[in-house]
């Protein structure tokens, strides 16, 4: 089926999310939609999927104009979508999830579970998926959940499949499997729209690439384009894909984690005997697929998660007995993983967010009485230093863009005298300009001699910032390797393969993406 968009425009108030977008996706084509965070990709896909109604413009399927009153209409017309955040009910089984909205019944409205289950197993078998139709979604790993989403779309005979940032949660090897699946689907005649902000993926996967920036189509490209070309098209200026930095001059071990184990509320081990140390003046990056214990490691260091056993120490002094506030006050700078839920309080003013973890410390407070004028002055000064684009510091922080909110968080943490910095996913969801800023700030902090620990699922970010890389898998450290370790090796380690074995396997077995990388490098030479 051929999908065409003509002049699609979507406005939210005064803000134009999509501006006169033209796009065409040929039958059996893998079409990448490339754009940085906030460029308007997801809005566009939600329009195609009937979740939003465009203010202007047309959607055509096989040359026929269509108008969707909701996702139901889009599905009816043969469009399927795998959302970035899976649209699966955690307490439902795979079968229930797949049939939801299209339940086979056997009179009296009772569901025909046998038919529904068979549909799941049929599709799984056709594409070689290994999915138990009776498993509960919440018990499945993310890779399997993604496959359930694909089954869901296929069970409704999707002719056009939209994949929204599908690789965000996958290891390079899992990404490889996804690429294989996409190939199978393409061979079966399905058109695929593949949304991403990752340059290297699009070149390996897509037949054609449409780049959008600030809600507008800024160009088309083919897989033959170089990464640098795509990057400047996407961002609108020349960008350096790597942060310039001196080699680290590491000092002594500062932050030490010894034999740390953590158990979650339901009794599962989420951190299993972790030991690592971060030295003064270096960046240790913790890599791994989401949900392998990195979040819990950062939380355990902060103290929001209790350790079942083991020890955390800074400069030799034991932190085990300290609560969160005491750890922060003894020099821990903490940039949380999820800015909106952990980093800022949306309804609070920028000033209040700026003092969020110092509100009861001098000079901002004297006993129980806070000093609003002192707080405000400091907020003005520091947000200025960090180039936060704001109206006044009395506005709610929610009026700022994601990048500026993250700058507020960084300004807050860096305004204290840090003994150690722990930053989780410091650039998630940010545009390229903000990413560069955050990376520079972290490297500056490192160069001041502060030990830095960065948790990131983005291998680009890891290789960019790290002096050493610790890879985690299922709550354990698979290995700590140098910054120059190849991506494929890191990818295998992220799936639990020990470092040495990963190196030999990776040499024998290149992923599609790294092959593409090599080709690209040769071209550029």
């Amino acid at each position: 089926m051929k999908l065409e968009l003509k002049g699609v425009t979507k406005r939210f108030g005064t803000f134009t999310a999509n501006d006169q977008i033209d796009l065409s996706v040929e039958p059996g084509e893998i079409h990448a939609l490339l754009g940085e965070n906030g460029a308007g990709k997801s809005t566009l896909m939600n329009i195609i999927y009937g979740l939003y109604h465009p203010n202007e413009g047309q959607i055509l399927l096989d040359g026929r104009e269509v108008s969707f009153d909701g996702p139901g209409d889009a599905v009816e017309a043969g469009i399927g979508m795998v959302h970035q955040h899976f649209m699966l009910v955690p307490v439902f089984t795979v079968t229930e999830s797949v049939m939801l909205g299209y339940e086979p019944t056997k009179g009296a409205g009772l569901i025909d579970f046998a038919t529904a289950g068979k549909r799941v197993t049929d599709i799984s078998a056709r594409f070689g998926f290994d999915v138990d139709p009776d498993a509960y979604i919440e018990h499945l790993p993310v890779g399997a959940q993604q496959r359930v989403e694909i089954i869901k779309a296929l069970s409704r005979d999707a002719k056009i499949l939209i994949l929204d940032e599908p690789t965000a949660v996958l290891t390079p090897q899992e990404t490889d499997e996804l690429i294989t699946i996409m190939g199978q689907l393409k061979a079966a005649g399905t058109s695929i729209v593949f949304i991403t902000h990752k340059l290297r993926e699009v070149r390996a996967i897509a037949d054609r690439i449409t780049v959008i920036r600030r809600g507008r189509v800024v160009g088309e490209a083919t897989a033959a384009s170089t990464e640098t070309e795509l990057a400047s098209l996407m961002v609108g200026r020349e960008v350096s894909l790597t942060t310039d930095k001196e080699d680290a001059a590491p000092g002594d071990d500062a932050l030490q984690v010894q034999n740390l184990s953590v158990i979650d509320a339901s009794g599962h081990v989420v951190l299993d005997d972790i030991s690592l140390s971060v030295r003064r003046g270096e960046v240790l990056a913790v890599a791994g697929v989401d949900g392998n214990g990195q979040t819990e490691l950062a939380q355990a260091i902060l103290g929001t998660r209790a350790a079942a056993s083991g020890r955390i120490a800074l400069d030799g002094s034991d932190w085990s007995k300290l609560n969160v506030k005491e750890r922060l006050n003894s020099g821990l700078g903490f940039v949380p993983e999820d800015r909106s839920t952990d980093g800022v309080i949306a309804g609070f003013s920028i000033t209040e967010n700026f003092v969020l973890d110092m509100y009861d410390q001098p000079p901002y407070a004297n006993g129980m009485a806070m000093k609003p004028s002192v707080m405000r002055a400091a907020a003005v000064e520091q947000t200025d230093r960090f180039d936060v684009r704001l109206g006044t510091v009395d506005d709610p922080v929610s009026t700022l863009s994601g990048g500026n909110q993250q700058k507020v968080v960084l300004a807050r943490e860096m305004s204290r005298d840090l003994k150690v910095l722990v930053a989780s996913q410091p650039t998630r969801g940010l545009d390229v300009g903000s990413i560069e800023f955050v990376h520079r700030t972290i490297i500056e902090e490192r160069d001041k001699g502060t030990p830095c620990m960065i948790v990131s699922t983005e291998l680009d970010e890891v290789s960019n910032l790290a002096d050493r890389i610790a890879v985690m898998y299922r709550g354990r450290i698979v290995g700590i390797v140098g910054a120059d370790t190849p991506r494929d090796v890191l990818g295998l380690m992220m799936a639990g393969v020990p470092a040495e074995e990963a190196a030999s396997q990776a040499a024998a077995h290149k992923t599609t993406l790294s092959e593409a990388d090599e080709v690209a490098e040769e071209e550029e030479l």
Partner: protein
Amino acid sequence: MSAETQTTVEAAPREQAEARLRPIRWKFPITYAILALISLAVFALLAPAESQTQFRLATSTDFFTIPAITVPSAPTAWVLGLALAVLAALALLRAVQRRRLGVWHPIVFGALFVLAFLVWAGAGRGAVIPLVTVLTGALALSVPLIFGAMCGVVGERSGIINIAIEGQLLAGAFLAAVAASLFTSAYVGLIAAPFAGAAVGALLVWFSVKYHVNQIIVGVVLNVLVIGLTSFLYSTVLTQSPEIWNARQQLPALPIPILSQIPIIGPVMFNQTILVYLMYAIVILLQIFVFKSRWGLRMRSVGEHPKAADTVGINVNRTRTINTIFAGSIAGLGGAFFTVGQGLAFGQEMSAGQGFIALAAMILGRWNPVGALCAALLFGFSTSIGNVLSTIGTPVPSEMLLMIPYIITIFAVAGFVGRVRPPAAEGVPYIK
């Protein structure tokens, strides 16, 4: 589709680690131990020696009559107390081994504890403890709770928190009384009652879905509104000419042949009005349809993950609206029990907080029709025991017994009775 043949760092000793690191759960053994100690120290030790406790099990209409059972109080209480101590010790053993207990354990423990209590409470009173009366009372007291709890299940499963059950019961009671009185037919009242509950449900969902007002607040305020409206109309119209507007009408009991003559169960369960039979049907049908039907699946998806439901073409707000109104009609029907169900005229605030206990029963029953039924029966039972014991005179103040449902509920929501997991999207308005 799993990754190709790779040797991974398989977490072989993971389970051992979990077993080693998982904290021992002392909560249950300690609770059991305290209860066992109470039964030994109070029920057994304080039961007057030489005295006896009598239980009456029969009514006159049974097939055959089971004679009243008389047991020596103190020895019986001792035996029961020791049995409870053994069960408590078993719980302790399992806890230390970090293993779980079967479902039978709390049930047996609870039954024995209640029995021990009754033996002590009835010891040497000269009066018999009429078990059938206790059970009939328990069911009667449970009826509005069960209807209310079913209303809560349907509403909350679709994501609307319903604090207004109390108001729905009261509105149902009011309209049932008025309609029955106007048409001099209890059955007309029964038909009218659901509309009153549905109207309150409609207001609840209108403010929640359209204006995104906090659902708990709407619920609280709707209760006040219904109390105000019904009390106002009661003090004016109903009191001015009660013979027209508020004459008593009663649903007749419809004993089911044969079934109603089974000893104990028969008179309790099968000699009831149509309202109670409707209740049986509603519980059974809901239990099936919530989990096995298209309607139930969609309702639950809307309550758990509305966006996911939306992406498969389910209209979230319409689903919530319909279900909340439907739920309200169930509660309204339950409200009819207060008036036509018992042959009473309407009185101000006659629902007397039952709606809140129904809410508690729903939570204790974990948003499950049959679970809520059991919890409601438990509450009805404890109140019924309280009522019966206060007439024969007991060492325990009736106020304490009446507190039991509320205390149990607090323990339940505090996690003493296992993890309570409400529908994930409950109370969150769905806005695209």
